[in-house]
C-alpha cells in the first residue's frame, strides 16, 4: 500500500499537514516566517511528516511545451505556482531500515517503513542514511521520528489522515500497482492537454531505491521541489564498502606486521 501524490491538483491548502499533526499528535516545531512563498514549514523532519512546498515561477500558467529555454520575466505575462505535498517515500529498499542498528525501524505488513519508538535509542544513523532527508531526531526527545503512513489507521481499515483530509484528491492512498496505473493515465491525460512538464517521480521499481511507496506526479524537475533527482539507497554499495573496509583493515594488520618483521627483535637493525 502507498501514496500517489498528484501535485497538478494540489491547491496548497496544507490540510494534509494539519491532519497529520492532529492525528499523530506530532508536536509543534517552530513558528518561523521564512519568506519562501507560503512555505513556513520548510521541510520534512521529526515533527513534520507532511510538508507542502510552494514554488513561484515566472512562466505562463497556460500549458506550453518545455523548450528548455530559461523563461523570461517579461513578455510571457504571468506566473505559475507549483505546490506539492511531500512525505516519507517508504522506499522498497529503505536505507533507514537497513542501517538501523537496533531493529527499531521495520517493514510492516502493508509494505511501509515504521519506527518502533520504544526501541529507538536515538543513535541517529537513519538520518544521514535517508537519501530524501525525511527522518530526523526530535529535539528534547532524542529519538528518530517520521511518517508511519498512519500505521494505526491502516490496521483499522482506514486511509491515512493526510489522504483523508485532502480536498482535491491530490493525495491518493491505495495498492501501489493500482496507483501506478492511475498515475500513468493521469500523465498521458496531462500530456494530451499540452502539459509536457508532467512526469512521474519514484514510481519505477527499477530505480535506485526499488521504487517509492509514496510516489509523485511533478510538473518540473524533482530538485525544484527539494527532491533528489537520482536517489540511491546507500546500502546498494555496502558489499563494496565492506570489501574496501576489509582490505584496509588487512592492509593495516599486514603493514604493521611487515614493519615489525623488518625491524625484528629489539636491538635488531633500526
Amino acid at each position, binding site marked *: 500500500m502507498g501514496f500517489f501524490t498528484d501535485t497538478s491538483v494540489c491547491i496548497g491548502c496544507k490540510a494534509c499537514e494539519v491532519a497529520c499533526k492532529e492525528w499523530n499528535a506530532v508536536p509543534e516545531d517552530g513558528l518561523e516566517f521564512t519568506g519562501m512563498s507560503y512555505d513556513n514549514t520548510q521541510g520534512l523532519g521529526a515533527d513534520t511528516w507532511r510538508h507542502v512546498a510552494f514554488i513561484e515561477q515566472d512562466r505562463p500558467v497556460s500549458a506550453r511545451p518545455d523548450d528548455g529555454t530559461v523563461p523570461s520575466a517579461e513578455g510571457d505575462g504571468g506566473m505559475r505556482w507549483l505546490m506539492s505535498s511531500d512525505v516519507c517515500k517508504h522506499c522498497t529498499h529503505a536505507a533507514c531500515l537497513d542501517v538501523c542498528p537496533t531493529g527499531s525501524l521495520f517493514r510492516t505488513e502493508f509494505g511501509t517503513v515504521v519506527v518502533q519508538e520504544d526501541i529507538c535509542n536515538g543513535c541517529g544513523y537513519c538520518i544521514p542514511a535517508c537519501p530524501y532527508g525525511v527522518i530526523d531526531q526530535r529535539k528534547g526527545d532524542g529519538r528518530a521520528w517520521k511518517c508511519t503512513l498512519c500505521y494505526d489507521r491502516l490496521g483499522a481499515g482506514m486511509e491515512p489522515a493526510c489522504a483523508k483530509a485532502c480536498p482535491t484528491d491530490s493525495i491518493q492512498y491505495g495498492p501501489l500497482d493500482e496507483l501506478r496505473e492511475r498515475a500513468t493515465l493521469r500523465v498521458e491525460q496531462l500530456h494530451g492537454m499540452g502539459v509536457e512538464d508532467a512526469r512521474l517521480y519514484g514510481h519505477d521499481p527499477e530505480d535506485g531505491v526499488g521504487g517509492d511507496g509514496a510516489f509523485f506526479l511533478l510538473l518540473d524537475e524533482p530538485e525544484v521541489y527539494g527532491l533528489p533527482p537520482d536517489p540511491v539507497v*546507500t546500502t546498494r554499495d555496502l558489499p563494496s564498502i565492506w570489501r574496501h573496509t576489509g582490505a584496509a583493515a588487512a592492509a593495516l594488520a599486514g*603493514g604493521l606486521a611487515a614493519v615489525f618483521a623488518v625491524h625484528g627483535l629489539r636491538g635488531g637493525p633500526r
Partner: protein
Amino acid sequence: MIGQGGHAPDGRRGRRRGRRGEAAMVPDAEFRSYYGRPILNPPVWKAADIAGYFFLGGLAGAGSVLAAGAHLTGRRAAARALKISSLAAITGSTAALIHDLGRPARFANMLRVMKPTSPMSMGSWLLAAYGPAAGAAAVLEVTGLLPRLGHAATAGAAALGPGVAAYTAALAADTAVPAWHEGYRELPFVFVGSAAAAASGMALVAAPARETAPMRTAAVCGTALEIGATKLMERRLGVIAETYRQGTAGRLMRAAQALTVAGAAGGALLGGRSRTAAVLGGAALLAGSACTRFGVFHAGLRSAEDPKYTVVPQRERIRERAAGAA
C-alpha cells in the same frame, strides 16, 4: 518572483568560494534547488563525540596491533604503553558513543540485533568483543597476573584492532552524505593510515626511543597511506571534493596534513636520538590524526547541508546513464 525553484541562475554557486586563490578544479556547477535548502537531513551527530570516536577508535585499534608487535619482539615498555593507551582510547570512545545517543539509557539496544547491513550494528558487536580484550590486555600487563591470558588478550585485541580502526569508514560511507558515500573506496585507507600514524605517535610520546624504531617506520607508512588515499579520494569526488578543501573542513584537512607530515618526518629522523623530538613528533602525529577525522566529519556535514553536492553529481549520473543508453 519568489524562490529559487524556477531558475537555474538562482541556484548557481561556487563564485564566492575558493579563497586563498585556489584554482577551480571543476567549472561552476549550475543546478536548481528548493530555496537553496538541503535535500538531505544532515547528521545530528556531535563533532566532539563522533569525530572524536573516529580518532580514538583508530588510536585504540592500531595501537593494539603495535602493542602485540612490541610484545612479541621484546619491546616491553612500548607494549605496555600502547596497551594502556588502547584501553583508555576505547573507553573514551565508547563513552563518546553513548553520550551521543539521543537516549543514552537505551545503549544496550545496540546489541538487540546483529545486522550486517548496518555498520553501526557490526561495529557495536566488534566493540563488545574488542573492548574486553583490550581491557584484559592492559590490566594483565600492568598487574602481571595470568600472563598466558595476557598473551591471548593481547593477540585478540590485535586481531580485532584493525577492524575497529577501519569500520568507522564504512559507518560514515554507508550514508547518503555525498562526501562520505562517494569516497567509500578510499575512506577506509585514509582512516587506517591515520590510525597507524596516531598509534605510532602515541608510542613515540610514551615509550623510550630504543624501542620505537618500528613505530617510526609505521608513522611514515601510515602518513604516506593517509595522504595518498586522501588525494585519490579527492580526485574521485569531483565537485564534492570542494567540501574537503573549503571552510572548516579545508582548514582541518590542511592542518592534518601539515601536522602529520611534520610529525612523521620529525619523529622518524630525530625521534631515535632526541627525546624532545620524539615527544613533539608523536604529539604532532596524534593531533594530525584528530584533525583528519574532524576534517572528514565537517566535510560530510558541509556536503549534506548544500543541495549542490546532492543535485550536481546525481544529474551527472543521469546524464552518463542517458549517454550510455544512447
